[in-house]
């Protein structure tokens, strides 16, 4: 081994705790992050000019956010921090970068992938109308730009973000038109025993729900979105209640999302082994239980390797860094390693509880109209997918992409991949695992011809 040059990708809770652990052992990691300021998605910092008090930005999580930010602040002199830097590919032991629009390469000896997650979305009629945002996008708008996506917002979907973002919008002075949960309320009660180990999280959810209800916000369970309606932009949301009746709520923006999906493209490009994970309904890079991927020198941490949330991400960042140190034969406290593993394993039950509380609407692909746009980059409809399945015999997701262009546009399947796989599985009568996973192709995100010139 020549020079030890660990590179951490992502400066959210996982990446920052990984960096802290490596620095404590005397290493000087490179931390590459796409954002202008560190913190990741959940602890995202606004531009300096829009800085607001932590309590206003992060609510209950203000102390955690501040701890993570302070840790990183203190680490800055001891790490090579590369903000505003996209990792768009990898080749021969180097990362392909785009820093402030300029291409560059970064060799590494070890990699910790803390690439995080994005919203999991499914299309519904009208979802491409201006004014329809993801839940995460609605939150970023508020946290990063101190802007709301509209004065009167309907929130629909499921997952902890649904109530959190609606609550944050309420606090910011927006008019919350409705909070519509696709999951039934009964699931939340059934999940209670699994959530008891994490009562804080559960209590926060109840608190948000309580505040929203006390302010007279309509909260409904077991709903389905029917249509985002409007001429130029969103004017109303039509939805179906749990008894099957059509309902309408007037609004000028919709925040929509079904929990999160891991950003795994880099692990894929590196050649990590993947397995289908039924809880996440997604293919994820495999880990040895201590943060090691299937590739020597490549480690996984945080939501990029399966959704467990920010608290787990901090622990996983540390765990991955300790595995890296152990592999370098640095002295590592085994009790600490096992303690971390134990704590992280306990998140698995919590994660199952969350899934029970906020289940993915598995019937979603059943009643989709043929003319619904499934891949918005390439404007490919559900009908075109069905034709590929029923006329051309397509049964595999990459084949679907080749023949229909679904997932071939700007997003490279990061937005539409979930819907394409769900829809393909249903139409071809196969399991979600059987349709396979979209192979990543560089660049992970679009890169400009002329950079910053």
């Amino acid at each position, binding site marked *: 081994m020549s020079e030890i040059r660990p590179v951490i990708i992502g400066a959210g809770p996982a990446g920052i705790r990984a960096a802290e652990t490596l620095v404590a052992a005397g290493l000087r990691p490179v931390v590459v992050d796409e954002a202008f300021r560190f913190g990741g998605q959940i602890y995202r910092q606004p531009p300096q000019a829009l800085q607001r008090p932590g309590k206003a930005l992060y609510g209950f999580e203000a102390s955690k956010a501040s701890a993570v930010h302070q840790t990183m602040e203190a680490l800055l002199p001891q790490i090579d921090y590369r903000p505003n830097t996209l990792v768009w590919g990898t*080749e021969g032991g180097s990362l392909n970068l785009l820093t402030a629009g300029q291409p560059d390469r970064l060799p590494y000896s070890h990699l910790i992938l803390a690439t995080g997650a994005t919203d999991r979305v499914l299309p519904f009629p009208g979802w491409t109308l201006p004014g329809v945002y993801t839940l995460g996008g609605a939150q970023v708008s508020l946290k990063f730009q101190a802007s709301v996506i509209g004065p009167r917002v309907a929130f629909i979907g499921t997952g902890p973000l649904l109530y959190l973002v609606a609550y944050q919008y309420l606090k910011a002075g927006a008019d919350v038109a409705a909070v519509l949960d696709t999951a039934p309320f009964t699931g939340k009660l059934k999940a209670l025993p699994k959530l008891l180990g994490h009562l804080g999280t559960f209590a926060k959810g109840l608190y948000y729900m309580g505040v929203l209800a006390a302010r007279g916000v309509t909260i409904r369970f077991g709903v389905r979105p029917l249509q985002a309606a409007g001429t130029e932009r969103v004017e109303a949301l039509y939805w179906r209640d749990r008894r099957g009746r059509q309902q309408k709520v007037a609004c000028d923006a919709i925040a929509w999302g079904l929990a999160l999906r891991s950003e795994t493209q880099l692990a894929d490009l590196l*050649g990590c082994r993947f397995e289908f994970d039924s809880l996440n309904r997604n293919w994820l890079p495999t880990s040895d239980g201590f943060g090691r991927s299937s590739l020597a020198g490549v480690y996984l941490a945080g939501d990029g390797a399966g959704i467990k949330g920010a608290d787990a991400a901090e622990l996983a960042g540390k765990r991955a860094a300790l595995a890296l140190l152990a592999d370098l034969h640095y002295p590592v406290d085994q009790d600490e390693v096992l303690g971390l593993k134990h704590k992280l394993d306990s998140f698995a039950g919590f994660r199952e509880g969350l899934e029970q509380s906020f289940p993915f609407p598995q019937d979603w692909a059943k009643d989709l109209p043929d003319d619904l746009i499934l891949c918005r980059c390439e404007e490919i409809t559900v009908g075109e997918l069905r034709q590929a399945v029923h006329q051309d015999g397509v049964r595999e997701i990459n084949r679907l992409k*080749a023949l229909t262009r679904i997932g*071939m*546009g700007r997003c*490279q399947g990061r937005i539409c991949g979930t819907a394409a796989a769900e829809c393909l599985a249903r139409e071809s009568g196969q399991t979600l695992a059987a349709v396979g996973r979209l192979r990543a192709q560089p*660049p992970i995100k679009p890169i*400009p*011809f*002329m950079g910053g010139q």
Partner: protein
Amino acid sequence: MEQLTSDVAIIGGGIVGGSAALALRKMGYSVVLLERRWCGAEASGVNYGGVRRQGRSKDQLPLAQRSHQIWPRLKDLIGIDGEYVRSGHLKLARSEADLASLEAYAEMAAPFGLGLEILSGNRFRDRFPGLGNSAIGGSLCPEDGHANPRLVSAAFARAAARAGAEIRENTEVSSARQDGGRFQITATNLTVSSKFLLNCAGAWAGSFAAGFGEIVPMQRIHPNMLVTEPVARFMDVNIGVEGGGVYGRQVSRGNVVLGGGRGIAVGPDQTRPAYESTLRLMAQAVELFPQLRHAQVIRTWTGIEGDIPDHNPVIGFSRTTPNLLHAFGFCGAGFQTGPAVGEVLAELVRDGTTDIPIDAFDIGRFARSVARASVMG
């Protein structure tokens, strides 16, 4: 294990194997086609998508001309037009020497009827005002064009299946031999017994040929390609450059497909575009097409193509084994010529001969060169 019997077995479901299967079915032969992955998913499906005759060697022009007659009939033949457009193919000259070599090519190709038109100076600028200043002229082949390889190549295999060919995907051939006058082919979960065998396995064909005692000096190349987000239409012609380096076409949605340089192999059958090639290609492309200055690249890719030192493919009968035919090693010309190659193979099966001159593609040329080398050595 399933046992199939057919007149003809084909290894490889690319555009060559698919079009051969279709042509053979139309002649009434029973056909089994074995494809290790998906039909048209390798070089046939991931190539640049140029459908051009301009620039092909003299040896290949008769074949290219025959294919040129087939391309406009795709809709009737395979059920889709495959986004084929006769946009014209413009080969650019960046120097007087380049222009002279384009003129020399036009003279050589004149008897074949490509209709090449040499443009330079104001005539060139007026005709193609959108191009950057690095080109001083070019050679236009008005009836050349481009198409979508992902759609076309897979559609040949599907059309063959509709015509009654037995198409087996995800079926990798592990051995093929001739026994008692028939071929015995063993593949994943099945065996095939056939009178004829067509080796259309592209970059994988060399090992099958070697199994019949025929060594071909074929190497793998990985053309580096990329595509931009959709941008306003600025070019309708398919563009190449004399001397190579970069080629580009804009599809009707506005995306610009660009190729140039080489990717890399990262596993036995896995390839990846190369960082240096991609950056060089982007720089060259923006020089040629200033319209791309503010565009973004959304995807890069490469594939696995068989390349032979004399830049000609292998097409025709085996020199060692009766009723064995080869068609592979197209060195980048397989997509345009593929539809004709399938017909030629079918004629060879039926008649033992074809009107298209294919002597230059004889697999025996390597045995001769090996023999000559050993005599001289």
